[in-house]
């Protein structure tokens, strides 16, 4: 295997044994990127010279990510590097500070490896809403990679980086990870600092790792997790060493399988793959039972009120005054702001700003926003109840494998419904991971979602690691 195809853990071993140096990895990655990136388009910004000039670490330092390339989603601030959320309204924006996760990566010796493409402001499930270009699925370049962290997932799947960071508001790490056949974790709300993550929906957003396997996910989580006083919603809860949860043991573990996730609209191939995967785990001693999450059918509705309401407020800051794009309109400040926003935001951003503003507007607040917040409570209660009996819950990550580029762009509702299995997790604030669990007849990856109670990422790692060690799916590579 070539160095650019290795996992971070394997690469660390190679560095330690002096087999290769970080410079070699970076050089091999660039060569590979030159070949495949024109087909995949995973990156929004990648300055090869700057990266090459900054590969300082010798790889043999004891730092956790010494010499490991990590690609960063374009909505996470990296000091003096373009950070645009794939939006025209942030054209040219170079943050004057690092996000907390970026500081942590730098302190751990990681090589910051470019900014990955995404749906504008993380609004989307297909990576088609980028102001640059759509990213393509490495398994079939006529298909979407998922979104919104589609660039990060595609880059990891196509071996264009060793690891990546994404962000997840309604499935934006797990869904693209599932559709690209890689591992994506949305941590518990508050586990990872949001400082420097350009906000979409503040009560739902979390940064998390997208990696080639479960062990790399644990490694990256060890680096990025923890309380941060600069994010007042970050949780002051001790962070365990996640690599200690990488044990092959699910004996006696209680798995709940929610019946509401196996209804109409789910692709029979996806259903079969999940059923087989659960059999792998029960074969290893786990116990599996049906569970009910009765308010599941309301999750998409709640989400598209809560998330758009928060987004309409968060995106108020893009006004052409302090950063980014400004329209050529000088009549008054208000007309300049309105023109800037009208010209700077893409269609999906406009759709969500209008919907969110409407839901918060006088006369509709109680009927939509407050109602949605109340049903959110019921969705959260469903999970609280389920986790009294079960250690984890297993579902498909998405109802289907990757769809074709252009297939859903003109029908927002059908696009929104593709997140139907991932959204509840954000509303309830719990952690969940997507792991590769099979392929369709057309050779498209299928993802299995493992959920656990708040701050119990350890159970997810244990289940996912055990499953991975007993299957081969994560070792498959797309042919590009």
């Amino acid at each position, binding site marked *: 295997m070539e160095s650019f195809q290795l996992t971070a853990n394997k690469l660390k071993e190679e560095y330690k044994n002096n087999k290769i140096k970080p410079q070699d990895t970076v050089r091999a990655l660039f060569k590979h990127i030159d070949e495949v990136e024109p087909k995949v388009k995973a990156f929004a910004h990648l300055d090869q010279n700057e990266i090459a000039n900054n590969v300082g670490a010798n790889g043999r330092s004891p730092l956790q990510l010494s010499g490991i390339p990590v690609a960063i989603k374009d909505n996470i601030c990296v000091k003096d590097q373009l950070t645009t959320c794939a939006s025209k309204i942030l054209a*040219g*924006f*170079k943050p*004057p*500070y690092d996000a907390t996760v970026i500081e942590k990566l730098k302190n751990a010796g990681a090589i910051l490896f470019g900014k990955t493409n995404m749906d504008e402001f993380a609004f989307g499930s297909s990576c088609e809403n980028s102001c640059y270009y759509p990213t393509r699925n490495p398994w079939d370049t006529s298909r979407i990679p998922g979104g919104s962290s589609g660039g990060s997932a595609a880059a990891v799947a196509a071996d264009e980086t060793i690891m990546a960071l994404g962000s997840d508001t309604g499935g934006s790490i797990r869904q693209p990870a599932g559709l690209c056949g890689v591992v994506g974790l949305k941590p518990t*709300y*508050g586990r990872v600092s949001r400082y420097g993550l350009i906000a979409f929906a503040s009560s739902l957003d979390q940064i998390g790792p997208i990696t080639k396997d479960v062990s790399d996910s644990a490694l990256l989580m060890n680096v990025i997790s923890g309380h941060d*006083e600069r994010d*007042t919603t970050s*949780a002051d809860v001790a962070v365990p060493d996640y690599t200690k949860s990488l044990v092959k043991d699910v004996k006696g573990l209680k798995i709940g399988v929610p019946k509401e996730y196996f209804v109409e609209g789910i692709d029979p191939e996806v259903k079969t793959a999940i059923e087989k995967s659960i059999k792998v785990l029960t074969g290893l001693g786990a116990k599996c039972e049906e569970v009910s999450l009765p*308010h599941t*059918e*309301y999750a*998409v*509705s709640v989400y*598209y*009120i809560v998330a758009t309401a928060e987004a309409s407020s968060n995106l*108020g800051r893009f006004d*052409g*005054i*302090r*950063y*980014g*794009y*400004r329209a050529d309109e*000088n*009549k*008054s*400040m*208000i007309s300049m702001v*309105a*023109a800037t*926003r*009208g*010209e700077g*935001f893409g269609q999906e951003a*406009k*759709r969500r*700003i*209008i*919907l969110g*503003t*409407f839901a918060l*507007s006088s006369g*509709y607040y109680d009927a939509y926003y407050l*109602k*949605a*917040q*109340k*049903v*959110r*409570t*019921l969705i*959260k209660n469903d999970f609280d109840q389920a986790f009294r009996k079960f250690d984890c819950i297993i579902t498909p990550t998405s109802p289907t494998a990757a769809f074709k580029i252009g297939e859903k762009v003109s029908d*927002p*509702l059908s696009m*929104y419904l593709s997140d139907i299995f991932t959204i509840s997790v954000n*509303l309830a*604030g719990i952690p969940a991971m997507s792991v590769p669990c099979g392929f369709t007849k057309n050779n498209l990856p299928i993802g299995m979602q493992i959920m656990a109670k*708040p701050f119990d990422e350890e159970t997810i790692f244990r289940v996912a690691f055990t499953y991975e060690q007993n299957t081969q799916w994560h070792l498959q590579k797309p042919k590009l």
Partner: protein
Amino acid sequence: MKFDKTTVEYASKLARMKLSDEEMAHLSSQLADVLKYIEKLNKVDTSKVEPTSHVLPIKNVFREDKVKKSLDAGDALKNAPGKEGAFFKVPRIIE
């Protein structure tokens, strides 16, 4: 509830976001569909349910009243499309 072009126009004013006639027509028909779907929430009895705004028990976070290093004016202005001296520059505010 009727969601039409007038609703979109009103929301776009509140959001300070200029939309073309075409965009307003397009958004109103798409969002009317989305809202129709969302209205299924009305089937749920929430008369005895408290709203959730945050999943974690969020409380006020205080810190010592000590001056810390913060962004200097030059860095804060670096990305501004219009600036003059140590200020952001905007078109006139009073019409």
